[in-house]
């Protein structure tokens, strides 16, 4: 009887230890997603791609060096207050707490900017967020990776320069800027003014009130101004409305260049034929003809385990952007494990080191099946942006077609602006910038 009792206790202890070990071999990723509300469609595609990539890593590789990825979604509805609530709810989950916070919202980014430093959780904002956080000396916990808004604006001007046959040919040209009347939209002003002064073109700024489902007045103004090009800096319903109203007022769509938040299927499909010929920037491309997407189809969708309810959206711009989020997250954890112990889950602080030392070169992109899918990316202590380049894609009426190679933003203009703005923030907050020569 005593022996049986001891055996039962032993089994229970072993079970608890096994459960604890399993939990210890998991890496938790909190996902502050949005699948309902005004931008639910965008969120569903992006978080779908991200989750599918992590599911593929688990299914194909058994996790990262044996550490399985786990995740939990928290619905923010793209609402700042809910975003903060999700941040608090997710931060202590998992064996080592939340590894990284990626809210996909500039508003939520600003709301938790100081919290992430206190809680030692890195915040990665790929293609959005606070631009001057690219200065890692002032913002050690924030990573506005791949390309900031300012770099994107500069890359768009460089693209228009190539269309004209040289950047010097932009002199005397008139560029319209149709922007969402919000902090996001106004991010474009300072950099475009600076570039206009440098290259000799003029910028006509035209605001569109949120949500942007009515733009008759703006496009009639554009018709009067007759700009050589229009940069579309929109979000959500503003984008298809802009394209349709441009068509209505006779403005050629091949003279409109959108930012990456204006360049997805969610923007062009509702615009119908009016979107044909429209071009947009992107730090990732669309399509299923990349090995990384095919691996997801093979290891996840072939087993009916995909996250996307609408499987036709696999390979869309936003879905693939989600895959990019997955790649960066996984590679940073992998990098952190190399320093802090392979096969062990990392803490937020250790993951931060992984992000700061991320180096995804072209050889690694090829190994990942993502060559040409996203740009090569090297993050350093001082530079939390990395690549700083985008490709341009044109909508042919049914799909996006890549029309350029990677185009770099003008860092000689952008970087000093970032450093100046970050220094002002540091002064305001009493932050002493890190000395990167002393970081290892």
């Amino acid at each position: 009887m005593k022996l049986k009792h001891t055996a039962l206790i032993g089994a229970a202890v072993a079970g608890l230890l096994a459960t604890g070990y399993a939990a210890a071999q998991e890496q938790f990723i909190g996902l502050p997603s949005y699948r309902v509300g005004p931008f639910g469609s965008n969120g569903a595609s992006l978080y779908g791609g991200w989750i599918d990539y992590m599911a593929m890593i688990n299914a194909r590789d058994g996790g990262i060096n044996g550490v399985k990825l786990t995740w939990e979604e928290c619905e923010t509805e793209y609402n700042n207050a809910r975003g903060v609530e999700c941040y608090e709810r997710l931060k202590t989950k998992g064996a080592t707490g939340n590894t990284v916070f990626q809210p996909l919202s500039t508003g939520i980014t600003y709301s938790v900017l100081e919290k992430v430093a206190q809680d030692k959780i890195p915040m990665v904002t790929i293609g959005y967020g606070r631009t001057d956080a690219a200065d890692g000396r002032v913002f050690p916990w924030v990573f506005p990776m791949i390309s900031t808004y300012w770099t994107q604006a500069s890359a768009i001007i460089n693209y228009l320069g190539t269309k004209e046959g040289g950047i010097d040919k932009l002199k005397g040209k008139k560029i319209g800027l149709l922007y969402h009347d919000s902090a996001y939209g106004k991010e474009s002003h300072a950099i475009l003014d600076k570039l206009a002064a440098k290259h000799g073109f003029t910028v006509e700024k035209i605001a569109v009130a949120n949500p942007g489902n009515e733009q008759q007045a703006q496009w009639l103004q554009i018709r009067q101004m007759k700009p050589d090009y229009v940069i579309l800096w929109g979000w959500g319903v503003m984008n298809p409305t802009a394209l349709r109203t441009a068509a209505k007022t006779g403005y050629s769509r091949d003279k409109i260049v959108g930012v990456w938040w204006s360049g997805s299927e969610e923007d062009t499909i509702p615009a119908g034929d009016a979107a044909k010929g429209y071009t947009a920037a992107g730090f990732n491309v669309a399509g299923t003809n990349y090995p990384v997407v095919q691996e997801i189809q093979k290891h996840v969708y072939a087993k009916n385990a995909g996250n996307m309810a609408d499987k036709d959206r696999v390979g869309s711009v936003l879905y693939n952007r989600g895959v990019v989020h997955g790649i960066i997250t996984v590679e940073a954890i992998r990098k952190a494990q190399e320093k802090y112990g392979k096969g062990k889950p990392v803490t937020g602080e250790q993951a931060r080191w992984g992000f700061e030392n991320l180096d995804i070169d072209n050889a690694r992109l090829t190994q990942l099946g993502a060559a040409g899918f996203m740009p090569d990316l090297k993050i350093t202590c001082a530079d939390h942006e990395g690549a700083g380049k985008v490709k341009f894609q044109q909508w042919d009426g049914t799909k996006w077609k890549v029309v350029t190679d990677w185009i770099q933003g003008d860092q000689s203009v952008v970087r000093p602006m970032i450093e100046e703005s970050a220094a002002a923030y540091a002064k305001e907050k009493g932050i002493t910038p890190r000395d990167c020569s002393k970081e290892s």
Partner: protein
Amino acid sequence: MGFFFEVLIGGLLSGVLYALVALGFVLIYKASGVFNFAQGAMVFFAALTFVGFQEVLPGWTGLDADSNVVFWLAFVLALAAMIVLGILTEKVVLRPLVNQPHITLFMATIGLTFLIEGIAQALWGANVRGLSLGIADEPVEWIMESADILVSKFDLFAATLAGALVASLALFFQYTKVGRALRAVADDHQAALSIGIPLQHIWAIVWAVAGFVALVAGLIWGARSGVQFALTFTALKALPVLILGGFTSVPGAIVGGLIIGASEKLAEVYIGPFVGGGIEGWFPYVLALGFLLIRPEGLFGERHIDRV
């Protein structure tokens, strides 16, 4: 001068579309004294249900997705869904609240808004869809050639449709038995009940008609900028229209829509550049607020007289 008229005409045509959404509010307010906060959600639900049926019908019937049969079948099914939604709203939400203060009914419609938005996305998904009504959104050539003024064919079509709908509803209210009953209910629930008018029956009809109006509004707005959650925001465009035109007047919705549409566009073009632009979101509300101070019942609303 040509540019001024271009902006003015564009604004007037947009105003008719605002009026179309405002009409749904007016119908329900007239019959029950309830400000239906859920009208924008109904527009979204109607349009999403229509495109949802357009997507699934070819699979169910084997018909070509672009055929007229699929279009009209989807329209009939979406209309049926709106009628069912209207009847359910009356039975589940309004009937238990008869004789409750108006604020209670208003709060109930706020809850209804979130419910309808959630059900719509749960049924059909949150994907953004395109919608084509087969009318090109391009300038009318002869106006363009003769006066160099841009007038959209689609906007003209939408304005004509909205105008016809308003005229039909005005006639319906004025000359039919149900219309008279509706007006009686609008004047006094208790009195209408005491002379044998079936209140619940009338409410169900009104909510169903408001559902039909929401469907037409949803199709037109959906064709303009895609069927997506932002359709719920069309309600925001209707509020200043209602304040101006009066909450109880069908022609008031049209006149209010025209004033708001024209003034917001002219303000955006001629005042906007001096204040940084992007003013058409709030300008109609400022206009409506000013109007409210002068004539609280709106242009065509019923003047409220208290006898001491």
